[in-house]
């Protein structure tokens, strides 16, 4: 089995991961994966640069979103391929694809509750349970007992903890990146402070029945570029 020379390894590492992934083990794992793929191509008689190009292209073409989520978990603002230094324009072009994909990281990707729940009110226009008129519902209502742990749905920073007696009761807003924020409302108790960094899956609050509410539930919103979007589209199954 062909094995990359130290120089080739260094080049692969530089090309792909320079200024990129923070977690050493993750970086090492991806690097090994890419090297293995290149070695298989070398076995087939391709030259090193052609192999590197086609392997990276394969990465670019495949499920970028998922790769982006994966990488987004482990690092923040840096793009995996921001500092690429390859002369071939075709490589540059396919890497750009990846850069663009990876830049939009830290989208909400899990449910705010780990426990099972009943969805009492979906996103969109609905009959308001208290006002008894058609209203736009800007999030989802997830029915759970008071005191159920609520988790952040992506890495981010807590930007707002307020009490609003009219609607949302006690609520928390977490900012994830320039595109995404999430809001957790009708809470009983906040477990974080404004300005605190939170990770995906981290406990941030206990659910409650505060605000305008007909029963204990969590009101959860995903805000993309300032607009409310359907949170259920961000409930990944991984």
């Amino acid at each position, binding site marked *: 089995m062909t*094995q990359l020379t*130290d120089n080739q*390894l260094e080049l692969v590492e530089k090309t792909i991961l320079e200024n990129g992934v923070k977690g050493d*083990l993750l970086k*090492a*794992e*991806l*690097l*090994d*994966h890419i*090297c*293995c*793929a290149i070695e298989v191509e070398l076995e087939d008689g391709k030259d090193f640069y052609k192999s590197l190009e086609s392997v990276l292209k394969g*990465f670019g073409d*495949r*499920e*970028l*979103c*998922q*790769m*982006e*989520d*994966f990488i987004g*978990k482990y690092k923040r603002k840096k793009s995996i391929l921001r500092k690429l230094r390859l002369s071939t324009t075709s490589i540059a072009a396919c890497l750009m694809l990846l850069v663009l994909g990876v830049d939009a990281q830290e989208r909400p990707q899990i449910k705010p509750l780990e426990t099972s729940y009943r969805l009492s009110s979906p996103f969109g226009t609905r009959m308001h349970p208290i006002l008894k008129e058609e209203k736009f519902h800007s999030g989802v209502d997830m029915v759970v007992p008071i005191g159920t742990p609520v988790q952040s749905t992506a890495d981010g920073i807590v930007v707002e903890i307020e009490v609003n007696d009219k609607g949302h009761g006690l609520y928390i807003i977490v900012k994830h990146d320039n595109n995404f924020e999430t809001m957790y409302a009708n809470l009983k108790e906040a477990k974080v402070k404004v300005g605190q960094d939170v990770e995906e899956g981290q406990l941030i609050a206990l659910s409650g029945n505060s605000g305008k509410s007909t029963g204990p539930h969590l009101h959860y919103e995903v805000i993309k570029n300032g607009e409310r979007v359907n949170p259920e589209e961000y409930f990944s*199954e*991984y």
Partner: protein
Amino acid sequence: MYSKELVKGTLKTIILNLLEEQGKMYGYEITQKVRAISDGKLVLTEGALYPSLHALEADGLLTTETVNIGKRIRKYYTVTAKGGSLAQEKMNEFADFVNMMKLVLSPKFSTQI
């Protein structure tokens, strides 16, 4: 290649069972093994595989060890006892699901009703 949805729903079952059978494996090896067994019909993408591996590890279903290959570091995954019993459970569940789907999708069955 099968649809993403189908692969997504069975990915953890595939990983757990493969590791249960083969012992320790690393990420690239898993993709190649699955590709070979399925005759190229099932291709696990890196973007799907690694998040699942990391999630399974975080849940205590897999353990890892790292081995130096020259200057490279290779991360091997092994199922834990908990992972092994879940592998069995998931496989049974899936077999049951396949049987049920056969029934539901069988034209003979639907015309009888």
